[in-house]
């Protein structure tokens, strides 16, 4: 059984393993012990804190394989981004170049460095070990955060974004970066990405283009990569779109991967989950069990997993109850997988 729970300091080694196998392409999961330690530390502090007005809290959760205690996935959600250090995106805007006399009317897309998502909450750091990569587990890892948000809405901004990793070639090079970022950073993609992860992002302002970049001046490969997720992100994208996320022409400044957005309270799992009491015991014959995500209402003790039950008459096994730290009659949040 795989279980979602907040990160603890005991997870440092497990996290490092994930950071290494993720290959350094995830900005928020650099293979840097100090930074990973800080990730855990912020999660602990954020959970402990009584929040009336959210600010820069960040919550990270581990996906633990209960059979051996190993961490096989990690996911996170930031209460809001850009409040202390700027949060940059490129907005793809069309500029019209028209001449009446010449009867020409061109719409030229251009990239505008912007901070429009400042103040939004953010899904981040989604990584699932290959050995466990199933649709169900991906759902658990991604949507557990939405159950957490549903329970603690005051802790999150009312817009939620998710950044999908952009296209890379067979040698893991981003064609967008090679065409644009490299000129301004004088370093390779992984280094820039790593620095963004561990640094304050302040350096981006120093190095990035301030003027709009006209898309037609980019290489064909870079243009093709604009707003495209890496092929292996397709499943995540489908999942998020089903949750109500949509692409509004904002892309990552490094690899041009799309940023998806949704109103937090309208997200499917946030809005449609069922708050109900559970019984502990054995399934009886009248039930019609389906696979569901189920979470307790805990904060520091937040737990979430996949089980099979009848949402109208939820009964869970004592094993599940134990994993979720539940007693009979406790409330849970449930949503169909």
């Amino acid at each position, binding site marked *: 059984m795989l279980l979602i729970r907040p990160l603890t300091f005991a997870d440092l080694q497990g996290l490092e393993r994930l950071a290494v196998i993720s290959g350094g392409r995830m900005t928020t999961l650099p293979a840097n012990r100090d930074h990973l330690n800080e990730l855990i530390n912020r999660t602990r502090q954020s959970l402990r804190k009584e929040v009336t007005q959210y600010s820069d809290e960040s919550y990270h959760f581990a996906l633990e394989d209960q059979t051996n205690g190993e961490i096989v996935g990690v996911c996170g959600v930031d209460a809001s981004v850009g409040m202390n250090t700027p949060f940059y995106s490129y907005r793809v805007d069309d*500029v019209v170049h028209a001449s009446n006399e010449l009867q020409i009317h061109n719409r030229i897309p251009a990239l505008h460095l912007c901070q429009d998502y400042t103040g939004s909450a953010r899904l981040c750091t989604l990584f699932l070990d290959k050995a466990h990569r199933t649709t169900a587990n991906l759902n658990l890892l991604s949507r557990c955060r939405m159950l957490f948000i549903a329970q603690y809405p005051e802790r999150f901004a009312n817009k939620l974004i998710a950044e999908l990793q952009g296209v890379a070639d067979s040698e893991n090079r981003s064609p967008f970066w090679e065409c644009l970022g490299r000129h301004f950073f004088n370093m390779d993609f992984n280094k820039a990405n790593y620095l963004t992860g561990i640094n304050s992002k302040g350096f981006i302002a120093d190095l990035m283009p301030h003027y709009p*970049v006209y898309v037609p001046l980019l290489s064909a490969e870079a243009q093709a990569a604009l707003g495209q997720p890496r092929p292996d992100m397709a499943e995540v994208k489908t999942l998020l779109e089903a949750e109500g996320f949509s692409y509004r022409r904002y892309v990552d400044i490094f690899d041009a991967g799309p940023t998806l957005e949704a109103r937090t309270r309208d997200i499917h799992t946030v809005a449609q989950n069922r708050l109900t009491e559970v019984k502990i015991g054995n399934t009886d014959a009248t039930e019609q069990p389906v696979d569901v995500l189920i979470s307790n209402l805990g904060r520091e003790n937040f737990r979430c997993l996949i089980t099979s039950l009848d949402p109208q008459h939820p009964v869970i096994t004592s094993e599940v109850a134990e994993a979720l730290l539940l007693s009979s009659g406790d409330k849970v949040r449930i949503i169909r997988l």
Partner: protein
Amino acid sequence: MMVVRPIQANDYKALRELARKTGPGFTSLQDNDEQVAAKLEAALIPFTATPPPEEALYLFVMEDTDTHEVVGICGIESAVGLTDPWYNYRVGTLVHASRELKVYNQISTLTITNDHTGYSELCTLFLTPEARHSKQGSLLSKSRFMFMAEFPQRFNEHLIAEMRGYSDDKGVSPFWEGLGRHFFSLDFAEADKISSMGKVFIAELMPKNTIYTNLLSKEAQGSIGKTHEATTPARRLLENEGMRYTGYVDIFDGGPTLEARVNDIRAIQESRYVKVHITDTPAKGEAEGELYLISTTELCQFRCCMSMLTRAGNNLINITPDVASALNIIEGTTVRIVRLSSGRRF
């Protein structure tokens, strides 16, 4: 003897003939009866109107006094950009640096500007191939400085001259291919034709925001501020007079604009007044062997020619009857002189 003088009403035939010779690339004087007639008519105005128009094209022709043939033409726009905007890209530098990361990047940029609005412009220079010898090109081009020295109130204090931009063997401009073409739905030939109708059309479609040149093709980057081979001698001539490339280029082909304050131009700065003594047998003097520009000082009677001079006394020079006749002056007339070329060599 060659003399440069303002264009006149009876120059129509000569102008028409020049227009035929210039060829299709020379957009300011096109091979077309009506256009030539209109051009001539307009060119007469600034020499007669009082006060002179703010925006005027002063046109001069070079005439062979022996044959009375017109062999060249040159012009000065008194002010550009006062009706239609005058566009340039300005080449700028941005430094993107982070001490934290030890990264330091100089990035070259192109920004569209109208910075030369109101400036005077050297324009419309053409000399028939047969007359391209004996420094007659220098006389034709630099005679304009003598006119400007004489009538500074008719011109702006800043002067520019646009140099044709680099193009390859096939006549295609890499600058256009790398930049402008992306913003047009037109091929080069069509764009070229439109460009010749005026920069306004081009500017309407060109990007209004600053361009990072490092995103352009290497060829396009290399042709920023680069002069067309055929224009290189003209550029050198103007640079020797103190005109400088100051980072402004043509929005269409990336050719450089040369710029100077009028008063900083050598021929203008160094020119001075002397009176003339007309003699057939000038005494040998110190300036022997050096060519001078000599010009008269009245608007409609403006004449400029080129001759060696000798000193006849304090602020007094000897000229030959030939020169006097070409300039249409008499003994004792005050003229403006300057050495044809800068004396500085090292």
